[in-house]
Every structure is written in C-alpha cells, then in structure tokens.
C-alpha cells in the first residue's frame, strides 16, 4: 500500500497564508512575520486536519480493516508447514550421507512416516497456535485502535462542547445587550419626558 507522501495540504496553505496572517520566508533560517496570529492559528488548525486525512486517512482505514480481517499469521503458518517438511528431510539426508550411514529400507520408510507424521502434527499445532496468536494480535490491535478512537472522540466532544458554549455565550450576550439597550432607551425617553414636563408652565 502506497500512502500519500509529502506535506500534503501544507504547501498550498503556506501559499495561501501569504498576505493574510502569515508571510513565508521560504527558509528556516529566518523568522516568518505573523501579522494576524488569530488567522494564522485558524488556518493551521484547519490544514492540520486536512493533512491528517491526506497522509494518514488511508493508513488508519487499513489498520482498522487489518484488526478485523488479518489472517497473515495463519497464512504464513500454512506456508511454513509445506516448506518445513522438504527442508528437514534434506537436512536429515545430508547428515546421513556425511557419516556414510546407510538406512535399511525399513528404517527409511519408518523415517519418512515419522517425518510425515511429525510434520502433519507439528503443522496442525503450528496453524492452531497461529490462529490463537492471530486472534490475540487482532484483538490487541483493535483495543489500541479503540483507545485511539476514544481519544479522538473525547477531543471532538470537547471541541463541540466548546463551540456550543461559545454559541450559548454569544446568544446570552446578545440577549443581555438587547435588554440593556431597551432599558437605556426607556431611561433616555423618560429623561426627555421629564424635561418636557418641567418646562410646561403651571406643572
């Protein structure tokens, strides 16, 4: 799997920043001038999210899929069963020839049967062990991912909560300002009325 490489959204972002809150100098040897930190901050935040999606979105999706579907340990164990038999038969034959030992046909037949049996039993055990290991690995990976996701969820909830609190504060401030404005308007009108009454002769 080839994932996105490079700075992703950052390059256009730096371009966009020029003339806004940030001027890129194009070199780390110089300090960039930040005329509007608030705007620069907001842009960085937005682009950090886009960067993540661009560079790590597929990676994360693959990892989630792997935690649920991965069978690589089991597949590898099956492959190893096939190769182990041929390998160990060759080792045994070469060792026997090095010492000049000659097995009788009955012994050779017995050895083959023993090897086949051991390989089959060992293979079955190996694949079963791999199944257990695979399940353990996938569960462990899923747990890790859930923890990561929980962190994401927590951050998002906090952010949403903050946004809701901000909206509520804005609304509250608007209501307060409106009430204050009405009160002051009535107060001013009252003063005007009192002044007018004061000027009417006989009152």
């Amino acid at each position, binding site marked *: *799997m080839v*994932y996105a*490489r*490079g*700075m992703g959204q950052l390059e256009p972002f730096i371009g966009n920043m020029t003339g806004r809150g940030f001027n*890129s100098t194009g070199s*780390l040897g110089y*300090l960039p*001038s*930040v005329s509007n*930190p*608030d705007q*620069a901050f*907001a842009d*960085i*935040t*937005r682009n*950090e*999210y886009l*960067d*993540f999606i661009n*560079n*790590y979105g597929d*990676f994360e999706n693959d*990892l989630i899929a792997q935690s649920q579907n991965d069978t*690589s340990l089991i597949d*590898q*164990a099956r492959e*190893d069963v096939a190769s*182990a038999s041929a*390998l*160990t038969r060759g*080792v*045994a034959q070469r*060792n026997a020839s090095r010492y000049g030992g000659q097995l009788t046909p009955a012994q050779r037949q*017995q*050895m083959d049967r*023993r090897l*086949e049996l*051991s*390989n089959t039993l*060992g293979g079955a055990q*190996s694949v079963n062990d791999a199944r257990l*290991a695979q399940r353990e*690995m996938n569960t462990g990976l899923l747990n*890790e991912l859930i923890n*990561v996701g929980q*962190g*994401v969820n927590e*951050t998002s909830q906090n*952010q949403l909560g903050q946004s809701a609190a*901000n909206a509520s*504060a*804005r609304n509250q*401030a608007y209501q307060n*300002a409106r009430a204050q404005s009405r009160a*002051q*308007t009535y107060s*001013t*009108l009252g003063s005007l009325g009192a002044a007018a009454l004061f000027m009417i002769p006989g009152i």
Partner: protein
Amino acid sequence: MGSKPKKKDYQPTAADRASASVAMAQYRYFKEKYDPLLQQMRDKAATGDGAKKTLRGRGNADTMQALTAPSYQRAQNISTAGDMAQAYQGQLGVANRSAKDIENMMKTNVLKSARKQAATAQTGMAQAARLSTSDALARAKNNQDVAQAKLNAAAQIGTAGLAKGYDNYQSTGSVFSSEGIARDANGNPIKLKDGTFKTENQTLGSLFGRG
C-alpha cells in the same frame, strides 16, 4: 474629552509578534523536519520494517544451530527429521508472532502520533474559537455602547434645545428668538439713560450676521 483611540495603540506588542513569529517558525520546522519522518515511519510500519524477515531468519538459525550439530547418532536416528520439522515450525511461529507484534506496535504508534497532531490542532481550534467569540462579544458590546452614546448625545442636545426654546418663548414670545443686548453699528452695547443696556430680540440669523 479624550482623543479618539488609535488602532495602532492596539497592535500586538513586540513580545507578542516575536512569540507568534517563533511559534510559526517552530511549527514550520516541525512540518518540514518531523512530519516527513512520521510519514517514513508510517511506510515502514506498513511493511513491518523487515522485522519479520529478521526474526524468521533468527528462528531458523536457532533451530538449525540446536538440532543439526554433527552427530552420527542423530544421523542414524529416524525421528530426527520429524523432530526438527516440528521445532522449525514452532520457532517460525514464534518469529511470525513477534514480528506481527512489532508491526502492529509501529503502526499504532504512528497513528497515535498523527492523531495527537490532529488533536493538538483541534484543541487549538477550540482555543481559536474561544478567542474569536471573545472578540465578537467585545465588538458587539462596543457597537452597542457607541449606538447608546449616540442616542444619549442626541437626547441631551434635544433636551438642551427644548429648554432653550422654552426660555426664548418665555422672554420673546418666539422659540427661535432670544433676548439679547442691542448693539450699535460699531458693535458697542447701547446704554440707556438709567444705566442699563438696551435689549432686543435676536434671531439665529442675526446672531450669525453680526459683524
């Protein structure tokens, strides 16, 4: 009455500008130096960074080292090959499992780091939103104060005008005329025989027309 506030008096201080500038430089440094490293880690983690090959090689070597030492007895033993096959498979199984463990750890570490970056940005977003909200509230409050001040000023002017008009009406019979000291052609007050000054009704036009 004080002078109008100047926007330049509310510009960020030198310390603020330096702080923002350094922060931006550090951020760029991070993005240029460390972000690519994390992406390299991501690509390595995707393949397990050769851990599987290394560990399987080691498992294979351990098995062979332990079970293939030169021995006539072993060469003649009919169960040697079977035992070796079982041991070999077992060792490879352990190696595969360890490699997968390493691979998964690398992957989750990369994801955690990447997610932490995004989470840091999100926390920043919340902070930025909070700052913006404070700004918006302050701006709304300022607008409200300015509008109210305009209304109050208009009311004060209106009240003063009404009072003056009433005063004029009482003394001259006209709202727009006031009683003032009469002056001759040279602009000198005209004095009466009893020592008091002569008065006359002055309109707004005569006030401005006086030389």
